[in-house]
């Protein structure tokens, strides 16, 4: 019996933009199935560049990315994009169809699903994010928090192996922030959360990575990383005023 491959394995990933700017200098990450991991780092650390490699939007200059054992390559792209659910920061970028239902159906429909099967996927995904019954609304009539959760539903509808969220808590009011956290905790899926919202990482992820200057600078328990002010300061990360790591 072969053991389950990790949800995500990134090895020696390096990338330079066409203009020559080197963004990643050999990144190694392994995330096991079912883990929830935070990827922390200041602005400009290469977080977004790394995320773009996970589903093959950018292709590695050097190194490899594997999703549940399947390498990211041109011929595997379709399956990779099903396995990696990327949730972008601005839900207005993610929700481009005229109604919520069509938007959630977009991914599975691209996989060839039609009819009742497709309808079922849409219903299931909207229930997972706690928003049943809004299927026929146009996205721009939803609150920002609802739009963020619908954005999560659009990728859940593809039943991904790993959910990758780019700054999931940005611009959310406290209640929407808590609602999204409840949704993420309830999901049975591997999660990689890119953020510099340290309390949110603490709340949702047992493990954290710090990406700084294009390399993984730290990898460990979120509680320990956040309890190390020197490490945080070195990578331009700071806990909010009054927040003490480990106090919950």
């Amino acid at each position, binding site marked *: 019996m072969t053991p389950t491959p990790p949800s995500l394995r990134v090895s020696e990933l390096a990338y330079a933009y066409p203009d020559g700017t080197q963004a990643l200098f050999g990144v190694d990450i392994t995330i096991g199935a079912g883990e929830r991991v935070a990827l922390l780092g200041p602005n400009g650390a290469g977080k977004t560049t790394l995320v773009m490699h996970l589903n093959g939007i950018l292709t590695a200059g050097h190194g490899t990315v594997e999703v549940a054992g399947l390498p990211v390559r041109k011929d595997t792209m379709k399956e990779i994009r099903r396995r990696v659910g990327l949730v972008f920061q601005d839900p207005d970028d993610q929700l481009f*169809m005229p109604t919520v239902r069509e938007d959630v159906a*977009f991914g599975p429909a691209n*996989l060839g699903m039609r009819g009742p099967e497709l309808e079922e996927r849409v219903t299931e995904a909207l229930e997972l994010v706690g928003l049943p019954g809004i299927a026929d609304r146009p996205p721009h009539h939803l609150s920002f928090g609802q739009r963020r959760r619908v954005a999560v539903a659009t990728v859940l509808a593809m039943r991904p192996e790993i959910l990758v969220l780019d700054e999931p808590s940005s611009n959310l009011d406290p209640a929407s922030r808590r609602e999204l956290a409840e949704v993420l905790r309830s999901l049975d899926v591997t999660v990689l959360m890119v953020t510099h919202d340290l309390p949110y990482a603490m709340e949702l992820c047992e493990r954290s990575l710090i990406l700084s200057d294009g390399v993984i600078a730290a990898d460990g328990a979120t509680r320990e990383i956040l309890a190390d002010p020197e490490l945080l300061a070195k990578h331009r990360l700071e806990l909010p005023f009054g927040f003490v790591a480990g106090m919950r």
Partner: protein
Amino acid sequence: MGAGGHHQLYRPGGTVVHRLAPQCKLPAVAAFAVVVVATPREAFWAFGVYALLLAAVAAVARVPAGFLLRRMVIELPFVLFAFLLPVIGLGERVDVLGLSLSAEGLWAAWNILAKATLGVVASILLAATTEPRMMLLGAQRLRLPPLLVQIAMFMLRYMDVILDEMRRMRVARESRGFVARDVRHLPALAKSAGAMFIRSYERGERVHLAMLSRGYSGSMPVIDDLAAPLGSWVTAALLPTAALATAVLSWSLT
């Protein structure tokens, strides 16, 4: 954003006209417009019949006259142009209320006015009874160029987002004491428009990435496949068929 969230041209309802499949209504209106344009301008009575046909559609769809009239404002520039024709037209002159007008120009003006008005009213009726989204689904169903349908779809989706962004830029300008009063303020407005263009372009790129991430490969998957029953086609064909009969009669009479 229109009141109640509905598009301003759309008037919700459940009449026969509202329920007709969009892929039947679109060609029906297009065919009606072609027939109207092909009618000889001398056949005054035929245009009267067309107007009556549209009035009948409006009555069935419960679209009030006031609603139609307000939306016909869009035709104004053409009306102004049409009024110029008799004045600047050449050829034989006739006296109307003491003005010397060109007979050929008068005919041309009548021709434009009558045909454009009928076309505009038909389009307003179509828009009043068809949700914009359904219109696009109909266009997709009719196999109109998919790229154009997609562009229209994104315009519909992002119109409010872009208007909102424009509003924020205006607030930002005015918060710093800028009020556009005359020509000298145009450069500032032009720069705002440029910034708006770049922002929208960048958003387009991000949306494209989001689409690729969910398996987009150049064509929109058909999510809602609206099949139209034969009855729908027959009902929609009533308007252009009646118009065509009128036109044929007018051709044979002239």
